[in-house]
């Protein structure tokens, strides 16, 4: 077989293995996000939202739905994918992956595909939960799906990088907790950046998460902090950067091979 061929059996084996891992803990993987989402709606939607009428002409409860989905999508994609590759490194079973006749792209497609599948499913579950609390309208369903898939894939890829980079469990948690979650909260998950004073708004525009959330929110409400094209371009750009980094990691064996 040539190096360039696509080895579907290998990809399928890894994908299935990763999905089986998730299915074993199906209950936690579904129940936890459903509870969290419900809590957000109780706190932000009912308690605070009752005092805030509308944002950009959308009821506050409905306004936060895309942000909420994105928040889970970011954190779950990262944790799924980083754990998926970190764990074999930790237990030593990575030897098998490294000795298998698979290319880096196949490994990435399988691991990132599995992690993204899981977080897409999760995003849809959160959307369904949200629909129980507030009327959710999606203006551009196809764009919504496109952003959902692209974001899940991008952050899974990012998580994959973290999983390769991490030398211990603390490092595995470090970036999601200390960087992604704050940036998401400050990136307009729960408010429109138009609501900020001008100086802060400028600062906020340096937060890449703003661009990622904005396009997704636009697909729901047609209201956006930045243009859809910019949002899409930023997401694709981030995806490309992550892919390049993973490619480099496999080429040099960074923290995978000695």
């Amino acid at each position, binding site marked *: *077989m*040539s*190096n360039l*061929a696509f*080895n579907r*059996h*290998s990809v*399928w*084996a*890894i994908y*299935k*293995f990763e999905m*089986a*891992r998730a299915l*074993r803990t199906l209950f936690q993987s579904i129940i936890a996000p459903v509870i969290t989402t419900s809590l957000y709606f109780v706190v932000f939607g009912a308690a605070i939202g009752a005092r805030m009428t509308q944002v950009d002409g959308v009821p506050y409860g409905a306004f936060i739905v895309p942000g909420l989905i994105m928040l889970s999508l970011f954190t779950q994609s990262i944790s799924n994918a980083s754990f998926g590759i970190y764990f074999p490194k930790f*237990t*030593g*079973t990575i*030897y*098998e*992956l*490294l*000795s*298998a*006749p*698979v*290319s880096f792209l196949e490994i990435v497609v399988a691991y990132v595909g599995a992690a993204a599948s899981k977080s897409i499913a999760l995003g849809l579950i959160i959307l369904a939960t949200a629909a129980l609390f507030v009327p959710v309208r999606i203006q551009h369903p196809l764009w919504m799906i496109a952003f959902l898939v692209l974001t899940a894939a991008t952050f899974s890829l990012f998580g994959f990088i973290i999983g390769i980079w991490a030398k211990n469990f603390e490092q595995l948690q470090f970036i999601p907790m200390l960087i992604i979650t704050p940036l998401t909260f400050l990136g307009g998950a729960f408010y429109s950046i138009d609501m900020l004073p001008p100086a802060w708004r400028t600062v906020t525009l340096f937060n890449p998460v703003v661009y990622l959330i904005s396009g997704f929110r636009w697909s729901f409400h047609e209201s956006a902090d930045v243009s859809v094209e910019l949002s899409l371009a930023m997401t694709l750009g981030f995806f490309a950067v992550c892919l390049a980094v993973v490619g480099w990691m496999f080429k040099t*064996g960074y923290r995978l*091979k*000695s």
Partner: protein
Amino acid sequence: MAAIISISNLTKTYASGHPALKRVDLEIHQGEIFALLGPNGAGKTTLINIVCGIVTPSAGTILAAGHDIQRDYRAARAKIGLVPQELSTDAFESVWATVSFSRGLFGHAPKPAYIEQVLRDLSLWDKRQNRIMTLSGGMKRRVMIAKALAHEPQILFLDEPTAGVDVELRRDMWALVRRLRENGVTIILTTHYIDEAEEMADRIGVIDKGELILVEEKSTLMKKLGKKQLTLNLSEPLAAIPSELGDWHLVLNGGGTELEYTFDAVDERAGIPALLQRMSDLGIRFKDLHTRQSSLEDIFVSLVSDRSGG
């Protein structure tokens, strides 16, 4: 004989600066059992891991089944199975699932009948539905072997397959290795049990401090370096070795009751009949005798200690 693996000029210096392999050249013949011996830290695992793609070589080239392991890694790796030294398995998966996974990972369509055969050969069939974490260490090792065989490799690396394994499993493993060899699989194993290499291997390589210091047919090696020893239990103790027996360089042991004669195995003519004749002429009688051939272990120890000595 055709080489199935050719290693040339293989050098590995780890990031720490430690030179684990120094310009190693080695050819493994198609269909043989090759035992790689060497003390801890000699570089055995490093060599195996490089061939399997787990460690990056610093220099040198390796062909496996005619394919360059770096340029043509897919074709090369598809032919190779590895049972690593460390026991690392999944925990929650069943035996069946993990072995089937390995087959898929190596690019093969499922073949349940073959997996069943492998599991039966390794006495794992009854355990196929068990989670791996519930198995004993020896069973886990069998699982790792089953995983390595799942894609029907032509070349099998066994890095200390019998470390910490009981006698029965050891015998089973030897039997399995022989069966695989009969089916044309080339086997490269490392071990610290020299009797195992002596029992199993066609050829032996000794590696020490990153250098391959010897590669030889086992039988040649035993002949070339092996010593034979004749011990005679005397009927009456001797105070000293009579000068008439000086030609044989005998050693007197056991408070004068044992005479030991050491000779080269190659040099069989070495005159046992003459010695016995001379002894009977001198009236020295013995009540028992036995000979002993030095084992591979003796050879190995003397090889490695000679090097560290000078």
